């Protein structure tokens, strides 16, 4: 069963009895989880286990899916994000998301980063600073500072993904969700992103879905193992990897299936 996390003063994200259906098919079954502030939480499990579906509940991207029905509560900083008075647009400003495939807009590097702040009404004279800061935080400033006006799509895949991270940072979220952010990247780009994620933990709460168990072990503080829509086990990463409580967790981690 889910292992309670010790010394959590106030969790940033609390999920309580979350159930989700796509039409008739139940994709998430009674998920409960508490994610502390300024930590990295990795969600692992075989394809189709519900980990991506779960992470998309945290910024309500599942709202866009037809016939998707959700029960239960997701509290972010104590507030139920499925509550009646919640503005989804505001929620997503606070809970950013980086996707599996690097997906910059077909605009310049600068405009990609400035896109969110501009629309959210940031003063034009502050934009340069925001763009620079976001690119620096995403460790891509050195490579792009002399060509901010060139198209973002001219960057390499790994650079594009860091650009997407910078784009998310520019909106100043408090939580960042990563949905398999390195599965389309080469090993060198992957390690740069991993390093970046570990650095971002200082200022953000991070939840990352990953196929790559070594990645989860390397970068996360907490790990949740999903199987067939259930959260089988959740706890400190060290413990999940060295001393799993559930048989199926152990089987998955040791590569017996998945």
């Amino acid at each position: 069963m889910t292992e309670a996390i010790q010394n959590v003063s106030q969790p940033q994200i609390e999920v309580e009895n979350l159930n989700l259906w796509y039409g008739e098919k139940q994709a998430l079954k009674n998920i409960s989880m508490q994610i502390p502030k300024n930590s990295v939480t990795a969600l692992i499990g075989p394809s189709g286990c519900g980990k991506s579906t779960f992470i998309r509940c945290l910024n309500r991207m599942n709202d866009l899916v037809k016939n998707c029905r959700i029960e239960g509560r997701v509290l972010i900083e104590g507030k139920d994000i499925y509550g009646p008075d919640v503005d989804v647009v505001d929620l997503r400003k606070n809970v950013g998301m980086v996707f599996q495939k690097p997906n910059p807009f077909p605009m310049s590097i600068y405009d990609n980063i400035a896109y969110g702040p501009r629309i959210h009404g940031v003063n034009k004279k502050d934009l340069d600073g925001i763009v620079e800061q976001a690119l620096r935080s995403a460790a891509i400033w050195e490579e792009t500072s002399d060509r901010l006006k060139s198209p973002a799509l001219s960057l390499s895949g790994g650079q594009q993904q860091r650009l997407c991270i910078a784009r998310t940072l520019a909106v100043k979220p408090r939580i960042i969700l990563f949905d398999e952010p390195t599965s389309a990247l080469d090993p060198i780009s992957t390690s740069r992103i991993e390093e970046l994620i570990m650095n971002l933990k200082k200022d953000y709460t991070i939840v990352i879905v990953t196929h790559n168990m070594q990645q989860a072990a390397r970068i996360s503080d907490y790990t949740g193992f999903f199987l067939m829509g259930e959260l089988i086990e959740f706890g400190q990463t060290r413990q999940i990897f060295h001393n799993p409580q559930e048989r199926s967790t152990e089987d998955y981690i040791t590569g017996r299936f998945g």
Partner: protein
Amino acid sequence: MGLSSKTSEKIAFSLLILATLTVVGFVLIILGYIISNGYGTIDIEFLTQAPNRMMTQGGIYPAIVGTIALIIGSMSVALPIGIMAAIYLNEYAGETRTTWLIEMAINNLAGTPSVVFGLFGLALFVKYFGFGPSILSASLTLALLILPIIIRSTEEALITVPKEYRDSSLALGVSKWQTIRYVVLPAAIPGIVTGSILSIGRVAGETAPILFTGAAYFLPRLPDSIHSQFMALPYHLFVLATAGTNIAKTRPIQYGTALVLLLIVLGLNIVAVLIRRHYRNKLKI
């Protein structure tokens, strides 16, 4: 089966290229015929004078002005409405039975003969709304005619915008409308412009819809407002070729008119292609 894959490949390739050559061939023949016959007629006078001497002499200036007025009038109605309808259908409506019915209606509208649009325009705009035979009535009628083309091509352009753009914009806390306005529409502009090109060709070339709604057989003056009747190139051509005072004598004018009509459509197409290329380059690497 008898044919080897190599032989069947060769036969298929020959048939395909033959079909293509046929199409290109006919276009070239038509163009060459009109250009060679109409070329001599076109001069400054032809382009800037009204017809005179029972339309056997003079120019076609009023018809050029009329056709351009129709293009501007119908496009300025049909483009915004068509694009907005397409955005609604593609981005907001969802796949309900009602949407399906609307899509069916649009498809049927696209297949409706243009003379029916003409009669409809006569009944609705000329008579019921009392706009009379005028640029206004004809433009609105033509706008209806090209609406399905614009909606269809805009929808197709919207569909090809990758879902990733929408998702990543929404995930930045950008509203749906802002996402459409700042990410989806700019990416769809090349496709929308293509639809507009087709529509301009239709507007410039259609005769039946304007026949009942305001095109005049002959006017000595230019239209002075959108409530005036007007001359238009395709109808002028039709008049000269079938009902003119002296069909044989006006033959050079007929070819000249056809050539001017072609050149206007071609010119507008080139403008549209340039716009499309400008936006494509902006989107590309």
